[in-house]
């Protein structure tokens, strides 16, 4: 494999509000390789969206700011790129789709208008040609009445169709990277299945790398190659899908996986992680998960763990347990939690 398409190093993003600085993302580093689907999971507020917005340079003006780290994309540090350069990159090389298909399209312009705008922005083609391309794109994302749809307004489409349009807009210039921030959360399962299938197909046919943000582990298992688990602004575990689901090392990942009710059979009792996600900036020292962790020992409360390599290549976890016996959360521990 060549070098990564996108490499994030020590990204720190903060919000500056009345209540002071809120470090929403605190030292995140990861890479995405060409053609790969990377999943980012974590509970609400752990900094998934902020990470993606930092990459796009779309943090809310005046409040949100990248305060540290680098974002390397095709040999260029996006943190330092000019707004002009960012405009060229956005939509053209990195595209993004959002959670809310209902509100992510401008209600006052037709689908065609918004799609053609995206196409013409980065290519020098004429109106007619752009329109033809727009039709093509809509067909690509599986909208049956592509021609008519161009002249319709967002409110005339269902949620699933709108999300397809969003994908069409994002794919208009065949970006190298597509960031999808919870693209299916607002949709029904049957529609979600359609959209996921579509994204998988786009990934396969165009080799577009996808950064898939979600909190649904099912979705991760479904389409991702590699997974990053985030907690309170940090990455707590990273690894291939197989590794994460089969050999989770961080107690948080374990808890997360074990707390999902499965449709394949009734668990006696769900595992549950006690407490809740801390607000960013409220933890002063030690491991951020220590307060909710049942394995926590003194060191966890005093010292901040690093991301440690475990087992196979690329599997890293932020937990002192792996140092203890080199094995992290072992099966016995899991069993113990099950019995409780």
């Amino acid at each position, binding site marked *: 494999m060549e070098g990564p398409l996108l490499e994030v190093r020590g990204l720190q993003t903060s919000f500056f509000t009345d209540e002071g600085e809120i470090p929403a993302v605190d030292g995140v580093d990861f890479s995405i390789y060409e053609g790969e689907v990377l999943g980012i999971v974590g509970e609400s507020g752990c900094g998934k969206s902020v990470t993606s917005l930092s990459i796009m340079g779309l943090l809310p003006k005046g409040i949100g700011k990248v305060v540290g780290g680098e974002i390397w994309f095709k040999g260029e540090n996006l943190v330092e790129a000019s707004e002009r350069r960012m405009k060229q990159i956005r939509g053209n090389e990195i595209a993004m789709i959002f959670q809310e298909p209902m509100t992510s399209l401008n209600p006052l312009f037709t689908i065609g208008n918004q799609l053609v705008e995206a196409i013409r922005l980065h290519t020098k083609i004429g109106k007619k040609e752009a329109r033809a391309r727009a039709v093509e794109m809509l067909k690509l994302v599986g909208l049956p009445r592509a021609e008519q749809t161009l002249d319709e307004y967002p409110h005339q489409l269902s949620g699933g169709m709108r999300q397809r349009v969003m994908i069409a807009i994002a794919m208009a210039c065949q970006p190298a990277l597509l960031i999808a921030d919870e693209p299916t959360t607002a949709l029904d399962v049957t529609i979600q299945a359609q959209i996921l299938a579509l994204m998988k197909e786009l990934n396969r046919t165009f080799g577009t790398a996808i950064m898939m943000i979600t909190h649904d582990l099912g979705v991760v298992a479904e389409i991702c190659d590699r997974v990053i688990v985030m907690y309170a602004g940090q990455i707590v575990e990273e690894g291939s899908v197989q590794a994460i689901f089969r050999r989770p090392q961080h107690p948080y990942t374990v808890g997360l996986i074990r707390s999902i009710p499965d449709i394949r059979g009734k668990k006696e009792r769900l595992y*549950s992680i006690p*407490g809740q996600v801390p607000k960013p900036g*409220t933890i002063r020292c030690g491991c951020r998960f220590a307060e909710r962790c049942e394995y926590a020992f003194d060191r966890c409360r005093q010292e901040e763990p690093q991301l440690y390599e475990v087992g196979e290549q690329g599997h890293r976890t932020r937990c002192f347990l792996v140092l203890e016996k080199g094995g992290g959360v072992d099966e016995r521990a899991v069993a113990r939690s099950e019995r409780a």
Partner: protein
Amino acid sequence: MAELARTPATPPTAIREEKTGSLWGEAWQRFRKNKIALVGAGIVLFFIVIALLAPWLAPYDYKEQQLAERLQPPSGEHWFGTDDFGRDIFSRVIYGARISLWVGFFSVLGSIVVGSLLGIIAGYYGRWIDGIISRLFDIMLAFPSILLAIGIVAVLGPSLQNALIAIAVINVPNFGRLIRSRVLSIKQEEYIMAAKAIGMSDWRILFHHILPNSLAPIIVQGTLAIATAIIEAAALGFLGLGAQPPNPEWGKMLSDAKDFLTQAPWTMIFPGLAIMLTVLGFNLMGDGLRDALDPRMKS
């Protein structure tokens, strides 16, 4: 119960302890941080103090005529000069604060009381009652409000009290509509559904849930309405339909002074500035309150 027991009795410090808990308390915290709003509140407070302490602050009797000292320019003796009766404008402006605040406050109070009543009835009962009340509001809003006020004063006779009534009347539909829409939207809130689900009666829902939750917009709108009411009172005073002499109502002072615009501009400038400043104070404060109380600002 094992699971329950394991849930820590003291939750992690995820929630920062806050000094004041209620939304009002939080709104106050937000308001306190808003410098511009504080300036507004300061101005309002300033005029309230002036109004309350007028007899002690005013160097002269506001109605004491010194015909020999007419139209004196501002001086050490008369800070704002004298008017065409030789009365001390400074003292009159100070006493004028009483009148303007009085009219502003009570007319708005009147509009709120009547408007709320109509708005609640319309919003809560709906159907034809709503139809009638809403049409009534439409009618009143379609009236050019200043003409309506003039008409009301013409019927009742010009006096401060009647000007107050007229201003209250013309503002009723604004509050009525506000309350009505609040009632309608709060009626849709899930906690109202929840209240119904526990078997709460309609009236209890109205008084324990809907009204308290309508209070914030009423306060915001009320503060801003006081600002408008003060200007409206001044306008009526200016047309000779408000306060009667020798009451030093600011609008009336302006209309008395307009004949001396060229000879004695100070007679015109100070009451005008007083109106502007007071109104500005209420506007700033109202804006600040809106920011502080606006539910969209809630986390």
